[in-house]
């Protein structure tokens, strides 16, 4: 049972444009959400997170938006750069728990 879903396996975007990666979740107990970036043959690296008390968190070119009523979050990358080409995983957790539930990932390709 996949509690965190990323329905787009891949996304291609031109350099300089906005990349929008989407994530949906089913467990209403989730209150902390994270995005990870993964290059081939490397482990995931933490990118940005958001708590359920906020609806937006920004860090440089990366912004995460959370819509709790829709159980949906998105990651915006502006402007997109070729170095952003990677697989992006959405993850969610319940405060105080040790488990992160991951989505299946979206492969982003930024075309120069």
């Amino acid at each position, binding site marked *: 049972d*996949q509690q*965190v879903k990323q329905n787009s396996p891949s996304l291609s975007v031109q350099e300089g444009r906005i990349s929008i990666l989407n994530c949906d979740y089913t467990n209403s107990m989730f209150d*902390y959400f*994270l995005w*990870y970036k993964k290059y081939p*043959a*490397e*482990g*995931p*690296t*933490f990118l940005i*997170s958001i708590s359920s008390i906020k609806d937006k968190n920004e860090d440089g070119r990366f912004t995460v938006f959370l819509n709790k009523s829709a159980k949906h979050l998105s990651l915006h990358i502006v402007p997109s750069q070729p170095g952003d080409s990677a697989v992006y*995983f959405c*993850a969610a*957790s319940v405060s*105080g*728990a*040790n*488990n*992160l*539930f*991951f*989505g*299946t*990932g979206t492969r982003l390709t930024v075309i120069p």
Partner: protein
Amino acid sequence: NAGVTQTPKFRILKIGQSMTLQCTQDMNHNYMYWYRQDPGMGLKLIYYSVGAGITDKGEVPNGYNVSRSTTEDFPLRLELAAPSQTSVYFCASSYSRGGLGGFGPGTRLTVL
């Protein structure tokens, strides 16, 4: 800092064989985790540890064992390898719950 290191990078096992996947971190993190990623799926938590001498099961613990005798090391043991354990295994560590810290580069295991 080397961060989280894992050995080996690749391994092929025959059904019924045993092996230990090694994980070491040099960040003095109390929390350590083992995840597996099957093709086309998100990462799933196998076992975690909140400190030396303390381990607990995650979402998919069957067929695995762990130990945590030091803060730095968190080995994962497969006793009787099965084809269903073919996966990429990631170790992670964190200063707090949920795996916000670093992931290792992964061990790609194939069981034939």
